[in-house]
């Protein structure tokens, strides 16, 4: 299993108190990595966990500092924290737009920058995985801010990969499709129509994904088995976007 082993590696996973982030953190630990977790809420009693609101401008750099304080040889960053704040397009306010962009895009950029600065003081090297979405390249109605932020992450992954390659830092992404999480579960249950049925019909593998479906791809991208992979985005959607999703 050497090729996929993460023994001796240490990772920060943002947004890992629940959902996809929690599964990614568990997957990295299962492959041998030490993991620092992050979430918005305080979690009294938890170790190697740093709470903060990444929408605050200074928070990303502070989170990186805290993570390196816990794991001085931290070499892996998983930018998973993100959310969905869209309202119907014609009702969207600047404040709601900013909520999406500040968390999904700005925080991710400055996490990567602060991480890279630390890695350079340690001689470079390392791996970043950013969680985008199939909404980063296939659009959904009344999801303009979210789709824009995830599309921005698609290009951020590619652009960071080129910028950080000379320092030996690989940057890759995953693009989950419809995965059942606390975030999407609430949304799916709030819809009285046949939305879920439509999706299950469109997902080739016939089912909505589980958070654990995202863990293997992230562990692979962080491992020695992916040493020649950078700027790549692995879509994890059961085939949802292999043909058109179409009208819901």
């Amino acid at each position: 299993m050497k090729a996929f082993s993460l023994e001796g590696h240490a990772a920060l996973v943002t947004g890992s108190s629940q959902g996809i982030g929690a599964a990614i953190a568990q997957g990295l630990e299962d492959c041998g990595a030490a993991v620092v977790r992050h979430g918005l809420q305080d979690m009294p009693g938890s170790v190697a966990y740093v709470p903060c609101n990444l929408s605050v401008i200074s928070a990303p750099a502070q989170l990186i500092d805290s993570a390196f304080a816990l794991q001085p040889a931290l070499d892996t960053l998983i930018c998973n924290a993100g959310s969905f704040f869209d309202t119907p397009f014609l009702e969207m306010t600047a404040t709601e737009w900013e909520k999406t962009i500040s968390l999904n895009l700005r925080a991710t950029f400055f996490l990567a920058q602060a991480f890279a600065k630390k890695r350079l003081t340690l001689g470079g090297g390392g791996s970043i995985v950013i969680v985008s979405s199939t909404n980063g390249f296939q659009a959904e109605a009344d999801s303009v801010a979210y789709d824009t932020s995830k599309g921005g992450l698609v290009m951020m992954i590619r652009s960071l990969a080129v910028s950080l390659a000379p320092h030996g830092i690989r940057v890759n992404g995953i693009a989950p499709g419809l995965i059942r999480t606390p975030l999407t579960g609430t949304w799916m249950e709030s819809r009285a129509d046949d939305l879920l049925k439509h999706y299950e019909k469109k997902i080739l593998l016939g089912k909505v994904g589980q958070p654990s479906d995202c863990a293997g791809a992230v562990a692979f991208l962080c491992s020695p088995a992916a040493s020649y992979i950078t700027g790549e985005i692995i879509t994890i959607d059961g085939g949802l976007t292999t043909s058109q999703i179409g009208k819901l």
Partner: protein
Amino acid sequence: MSTPFSLQNRDIWVIGGAGYLGQEVVNLLTELGASVLCVDLSGKAQNGPQVTAVDLDAADIPALENFVTAQIAARGVPHGLVVMTYASTAKKFDDLTAADFDYANHGNLTATFTLARAIGNVMAERGSGSLVLFSSMYGTVSPDPSIYEAPMNPNPVEYGVGKAGIQQLTRYLAVHFGKSGVRCNAISPGPFPNPNIQRDQPAFIERLSQKVPLGRVGQSPEIAGAVAFLVSDASTFITGQNLAVDGGWTVW
């Protein structure tokens, strides 16, 4: 340590498994616990622990069909099929005849389609399986003629045309077989020049490396992880994808 990358009790068929990249794929799959049917042109594949060698010219369609029937009878339906074969003429652009072009398309596309459909159908009857087809960065972007100095020929047109076709074949098969639980994905290697070229053409290797964000060409073991990932339980919700293993070649 339990990880989803284990291939214990899996049977994986690797077509082109004795080639420069194929050997590394076979090595990693067996290291992860798989039994491997290593298939290549006459006399190239070798038996080994967990490895059974078979001779086959995949472009010979009747032989290919006999091979599928015989091996399913002997080994059962495989868990994974990896197709790494390709055809190319190495001719210059203006010297390529229509027959040459047909020959390459037959080897690259017709043979891959025939094999993947036959194995995909029996996997679908069982309700599970993973097909991994090999495309290339030259199925995504065109070669850059300026990096080839005479007497080298630029990477030939028929090669990239076939590799681009593999990307669409992958999506089509993913959709066709998806509801039956059979996944289909592609891998697009970047520059993995063989050891002879790496040794004899240092200036060419330098020009290639300059085109890669990671600043170097790939080494053969670096292709194997992507194959192992795509045939393993770590990728059970991934289908229809094309995974670039190219050091970032297609990113900029």
